[in-house]
């Protein structure tokens, strides 16, 4: 047992060292004025991906509170299991618990860095698994102000990047980066992403629609950290400036290292996810 703990400590120290090294590399890149804004923007995204790499898997419960422009309010509850991809993109499984008429509906996603993602919906009333078009991911996710593409894990190759500069983020310092989606089906022309300069977690995103108008703002807060590097927000607030609608997400603490396997994220597992 002690021996096991010892090894865990060594691995944790190594991971921390890797994270620290990533930061030093990044600082050097950002100060290198010979590099283009594109190269520096991409370096930030890659460093953020490296820092969060190795989370293996996670499990979390989320409460979604939806507000429309007239002040009506509705709630949803769901659980999300995620498996970090080794050679592939991440895989995720979402099960809806409420409202009760949607209970048992589940969504399986296989992210791909180089091609369109695969996504299946499970309809419990018909016991039917249905593969759905990736383009559905730019529409409102379960009636909320989040599109599914806002919620999936960030693949660096899904965007072209451009570094803007250091800006103030409330009390902290942020690295502001602009990115444009590569995917034809994306609902956005561009996004402004604010990375916390120290942890590289995303504090804020401003979304611009296909016409270039300011569409939405996302703010994340109540951060929790796992193994000193995997930062997850406890609260997210997405405001749609064009419609006045708003969606809040309350995240329960994530459980990491659950030992999930690829079979847990298969279409057969989707049918019995509950």
């Amino acid at each position, binding site marked *: 047992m002690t021996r096991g703990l010892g090894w865990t400590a060594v691995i944790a120290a190594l991971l921390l060292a890797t994270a620290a090294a990533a930061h030093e590399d990044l600082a050097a890149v950002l100060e290198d004025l010979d590099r283009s804004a594109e190269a520096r923007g991409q370096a930030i995204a890659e460093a953020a991906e490296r820092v969060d790499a190795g989370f293996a898997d996670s499990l979390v419960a989320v409460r979604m509170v939806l507000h429309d422009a007239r002040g009506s309010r*509705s709630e949803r509850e769901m659980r999300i299991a995620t498996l970090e991809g080794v050679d592939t993109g991440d895989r995720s499984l979402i099960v809806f618990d409420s409202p009760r008429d949607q209970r048992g509906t589940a969504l399986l996603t296989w992210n791909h860095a180089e091609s369109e993602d695969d996504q299946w919906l499970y309809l419990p009333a018909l016991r039917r698994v249905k593969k759905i078009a990736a383009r559905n991911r730019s529409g409102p996710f379960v009636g909320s102000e989040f599109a599914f593409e806002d919620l999936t894990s960030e693949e660096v190759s899904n965007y072209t990047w451009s570094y803007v500069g250091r800006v103030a983020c409330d009390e902290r310092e942020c690295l502001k980066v602009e990115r444009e989606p590569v995917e034809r*089906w994306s609902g956005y022309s561009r996004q402004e992403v604010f990375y916390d300069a120290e942890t590289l977690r995303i504090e804020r995103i401003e979304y611009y629609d296909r016409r270039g108008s300011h569409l939405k703002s996302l703010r994340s807060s109540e951060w929790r950290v796992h193994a000193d590097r995997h930062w997850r927000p406890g609260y997210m607030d997405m405001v749609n400036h064009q419609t006045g609608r708003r969606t809040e997400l309350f995240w329960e603490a994530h459980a990491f290292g*659950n*030992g999930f396997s690829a079979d847990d994220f298969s279409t057969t597992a989707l049918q019995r996810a509950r």
Partner: protein
Amino acid sequence: MISAPLPCSGRADRVQGAHFVPLLLLVLALPLQAVAAASPFARDTGPRSEFDASVTLQLRAFPDDGLLGERRVHPSLALEFEYFREWNQGADSFTLVPFFRYDVRDDRRTRGDLREAFLTHVGDGFEIHAGLRRVFWGQTESKHLVDVLNQVDLIENVDEEDRLGQPMLNLTLLRDWGVIEAYVLPGFRERTFASTDGRFTGPFEIAEARSGIRRVASGRVDWALRWSHLIGEVELGLAWFDGTNREPEFEPVGPVEAGVPIRLQPRYRAMTQASLDAQYIRGDWAWKLELLRRGGDSPSHVAFVAGFERTLIGVFDTRADLGLLAEYLYDDRGRRTPLLSFANDVFLGLRLAFNDLADSDLLAGVIVDHRSGRQVWSVEAGTRLGQHWRLAFEGRAFRGARALRPGVLEDLTEPGRQWGAIARDDYLQLELTRFF
């Protein structure tokens, strides 16, 4: 989308072909590993139970009296329960889904059914399910052609989407080259039909389905095998079924007199079915295909449904998504089809998801026989009221077929007139459901 019964006769020669022994050997040869991959949501927890229930008040209204003078308003009340328990970190589970309906008009529709009652064991790369269960196969929307394991609970709804629980032993293997599902199906369940007090049976009196689990038609054990896999952007399924045809043929019994409903006895024959189902998704287009060839006791035939669904996000500058659907339905028996089926039909439909707080949706479509002009129209829509209630609307209309006359057999052989059986069964339905 719609089917209703009609008489026909088939050949009586029997095909012997139940090769279920290899399948049983396959099941017995399973590695009996104790704990492995289960549900990601069941780890590190003790045994977990879930209980769900819903009550639905249903009101069906028909503008016309039925061909046998059946009433116009049909109220009923349905209860559905679902109990689920898992243990062994989700590796083992039990699911129980009882269903009850009380119908004011039709005694046959007042009944209970076990939709599901099965045990599941999940191992490393395999799953076993044993008991009464529902399994869906297929891709198309206008008709679920290849979906053959479960009997249709036609008395619930003529859209064929309600199914009876099928007794089965199912082994599923997950491999890099696809998913293999093997089924042993001991026992068969008869299709449910309304009585002469209910609707959708035309000018006939169809013998009541014997309840419970019946012997299979071949006298042996029915079985099925399916392979499915995602290859690039194509989802592909190939299946073989050897067992009792879920679609009955009807034999007139008793005297035939004008003005008196003809009595029909459903007969179930042995059949084999080879099927293919596929979906290819490219951008916002989904191309769908279901194809089958049936042989066995009745003359063999080929049928397919093929088409596409195109999804448009945020149409007309709203939050709504619009799906445009088009499918072609073909059956090489043409006018000899034993059921009210679609032999050379075009389906056009649209699906609206409003993406509002109440998850409102709408599906509307029409299936047109381009030769006779006969049309089947249908609309389904729903919205949530508060957090616990859902209101659903459904309507269907049958156009372009003349009504059949009770006791006149000649009407049945007149080409294109089969659909006249339900020509007066247009209806509107409201359902209010409370979820617990």
